[in-house]
């Protein structure tokens, strides 16, 4: 770790101006940022701790009927999402996804805001945000999921922009199936299949530079929402990741297999 300045923000505005002034980094659960700092891979100079800001935490259900959504504060931990009765009832796929992130310690510290701001190509939450057609609320604006994830570790966020909450429209049914990378247990491939008010949406994480929608599977499932329909889709391995743990071909294959399992599990 390199020496750094630590600031504890009292409000979102306070945090945003500290980030603008120092060019530093926001700190949420620290489960990605602190690890990178310890390895001297990140040297943010100033760390602006969000954990003292009220109102960034918590889970609530907004609206009703077709407009019903689950709104999760950016600082809500994975463990809180996993154990939330509200989430379990409305979007069980989301609670189960959160339950499958990392280990107990990570889930007790890591936050949804941190996870999607980080946009690790193998992170789980981005699949949920994209497939469920969530909206990311920041201190400046609302960003639609389809516009949020820009590239590997890249998002639409400006340097002084802070996620305050994420709003997930409640789908008719959904499921997330993750095939963990054997060492890190991040997603080697993870697929979230959702039957939403706006149609079938399928998001894939782990397979490429960043989370993306599997439109071929969406189209197949729009015709027939069955496991076999998903499995029959041949995914092209072009542009997919290839590394020690999975060739692009293997990942392409897993996308259809996991999608079919998600269809079978969707509720």
């Amino acid at each position: 770790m390199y020496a750094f300045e630590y600031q504890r923000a009292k409000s979102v505005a306070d945090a945003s101006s500290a980030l603008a002034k120092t060019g530093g980094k926001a700190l949420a659960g620290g489960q990605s940022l602190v690890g990178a700092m310890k390895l001297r891979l990140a040297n943010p100079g100033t760390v602006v701790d969000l954990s003292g800001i009220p109102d960034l935490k918590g889970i609530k259900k907004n609206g009703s009927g077709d407009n019903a959504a689950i709104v999760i504060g950016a600082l809500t931990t994975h463990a809180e999402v996993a154990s939330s009765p509200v989430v379990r009832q409305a979007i069980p796929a989301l609670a189960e996804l959160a339950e499958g992130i990392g280990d107990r310690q990570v889930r007790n510290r890591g936050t949804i805001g941190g996870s999607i701001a980080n946009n690790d190509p193998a992170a789980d939450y981005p699949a949920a945000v994209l497939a469920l057609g969530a909206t990311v609320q920041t201190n400046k604006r609302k960003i639609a999921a389809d516009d949020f994830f820009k590239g590997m570790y890249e998002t639409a966020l400006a340097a002084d922009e802070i996620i305050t909450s994420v709003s997930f429209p409640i789908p008719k049914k959904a499921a997330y199936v993750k095939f963990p990378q054997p060492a890190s247990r991040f997603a080697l491939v993870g697929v979230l299949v959702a039957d939403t008010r706006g149609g079938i949406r399928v998001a894939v994480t782990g397979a490429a530079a960043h989370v993306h929608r599997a439109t071929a599977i969406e189209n197949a499932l729009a015709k027939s929402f069955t496991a076999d329909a998903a499995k029959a889709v041949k995914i092209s391995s072009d542009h997919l990741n290839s590394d020690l743990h999975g060739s692009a071909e293997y990942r392409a294959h897993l996308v259809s297999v996991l999608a079919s399992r998600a269809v079978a599990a969707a509720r």
Partner: protein
Amino acid sequence: MGANDLSSVGQSVRRKEDKRFLTGAGQFTDDVNAHNQTWAYFLRSPHAHAKIRGIDTTKAKSAPGVVAVFTGGDLTGVNGLPCGWLITGTDGQPMKEPPHPVLAQGKVRYVGDGVALVIAETLAQAKDAAEQIEVDYEVLAPVVDPVAALKSGAPLIHDGAPGNKCYTWALGDKAAVDAAFAKAAHVTKLDIVNNRLIPNAIEPRAAVASFNRADDSYTLYVTSQNPHVERLLMTAFVLGLPETKVRVIAPDVGGGFGSKIYLYPEETALVWASKQVNRPIKWTADRSEAFLSDAHGRDHVTHAELALDKDGKFLGMRVQTTAAMGAYLSTFASCIPTILYATLLAGQYTTPVIHCEVTAVFTNTAPVDAYRGAGRPEATYVVERLVHAAAVEMGIAQDEIRRRNFIRSFPYQTPVALTYDTGGYDACLDEAMKLADVKGFPSRKSESAKRGKLRGIGYASYIEACGIAPSNIGGALGARAGLYEVGQVRVNPTGGVTVFTGSHSHGQGHETTFAQVVASRLGIPIDNVEVVHGDTGRIPFGMGTYGSRSLAVGGTAIVKALDKIVAKGKKIAAHLLEAAEADVEFKDGKFTVAGTDRSKAFGEVALAAYVPHNYPLYKLEPGLDETAFYDPTNFTFPAGTHICEVEIDPDTGDVQILNFSACDDFGNIINPMIVEGQVHGGLAQGIGQALLEACVYDKESGQLLTGSLMDYALPRAHHVPSFKVATKVTPCTHNPLGAKGCGEAGAIGAPAALMNAVHDALAGAGVTYLDMPATPQRVWTAIQTAKH
């Protein structure tokens, strides 16, 4: 065991050491802090192979908090690190032993090779300063694969080792093997890669070195499995210091698995530098450093063939192995793929003739040395994969082919130098088959098939040579040290007993097991026995812990010392009881005149020895403190059968272990709970090798691709099933405890059992061969390849 034993031997006594470990009161090297201490950081090579044109440390030396910066050029008078085992090649020449410098001398040979030592007031300052060191590298092409390293035109790693060859060595009668193959009804052939592993003890390596100006002496706290060997090698070979001036303390050590046997550059540099800076220096590796710089294990490429007659009797075996040594010869590197490998190729079988040729190769990687099992897992893997494949090819059941070839009469002289003293291989196979419910397997397999899953079962009947080792045999085979062990038993005036052992406990529970041995022999409570280990300042001498030798060799040394205590006690008691020494017997903690009720308790005799008012001083020294050096007369031969059952998801390639049964023969058992724990740990590591672990270096750049737990997969709780374990006992015939050793068995048997199960499961999918680790991607790819 004799009649003198109290009941605790054979009981699952709770571990004495656990109180301090579970309450956070353990004292590990990183817990040691010396007054006025400085911190060390090693700048390591980012290149796998490069010439060092120059190093500029000017900026680093003037960085804040820096006490000193040393590079290879500063280490005048410091020799390279020695290798403890000389292998003589088939050409009659000694192996090539290129220098293994403490800090790089003009060249780096692997990513992580030490280039400079920075000493500063804080670790952060040392790291900051290290970033200021400018090293001018001329990058050379690396070679990380042992087979590629032998090809002509491969980059030359050491000028002194042409063709990157360390040695070619062979064992066995080649002509006889050729003749056996000529008359074979069937020959099974396999090409096997035994994957390179990174040990990953939970406690990384660490050292605290201090120099004492008052008497020119040094104290080194270090994560070591054998502090006396560490001191011997460091003083006599590298630093040229008298042993009397260096005290090496290996306090609580958080696991070793072999990786802490060796003399490493880091602690050696620290001891040397502690005098230069005249201050204590501390270094603790972080996990990334451990990945780069701990000695790795395995890394063999093998072609093996088994000749059988028409009934499946083994006629002969031939094995050719290329073994990576890494960039330098680590302390015992050379003997692992030879003495601890080729000699085990008979396994549990009567194979009459065996020939094995091993070529050891330098590669641009971290050094390779012993890792739990060391040579024996590799041998077992070769033998048991061959046996499995032969049975499949010839249509013989897996248990049946083993039974047709088991050794049943002992002592048994193998064609590969070892003489097995005893064993009972059928009993372990039978019991393992019962535990595994082999009879129910076919119906479980069809149940899996209904769910679209592939189920398989695999056997491994392994043997290992432990209790290392008779020094004369070791010496004849090239060992540059003795392989005995030392035990000292000090009976204190009020009857408490302190045992000093040259064995080292770093997870094995010696403080309990050894206390059980002593308490039972002396008829005293276990709590009256303290076991002291890991300190050259307190223990007379020792060879340390590796090769499952601690109980068989270290425990026996203690028993020999106890015999001397009892013999002297009898003399004292005879005097006190006014009886003839020959009439005094020792039983249940009492010296009794045979056939009478006249006796003296052990404590009374101890007190008399230290308060010799009524004592035969004219013919007997006071005191009750005895030391024994025990040199075993043979290896011990733990053996057993492991059976693994797996289920494979053909859609993802995921392998689940459903069942793992192990029946082992470790000879007599002192503490069944500790033995079971050792088996569980070994099996978990064996499962790790077979299913998950693979150290991978990039072929082009020589970078370590699996340099952290994000990419190097260790087994987790959910990978490891609830084991079914049992033991059978044929006591070792040549040590008084009848003990054989249990520390490595799990890691030796598990990989072959698991991979045989995977092969069995995949047979229906047309897959005939798969290397470890059976990762989902590999399994899936093999299934796809077999389809097309």
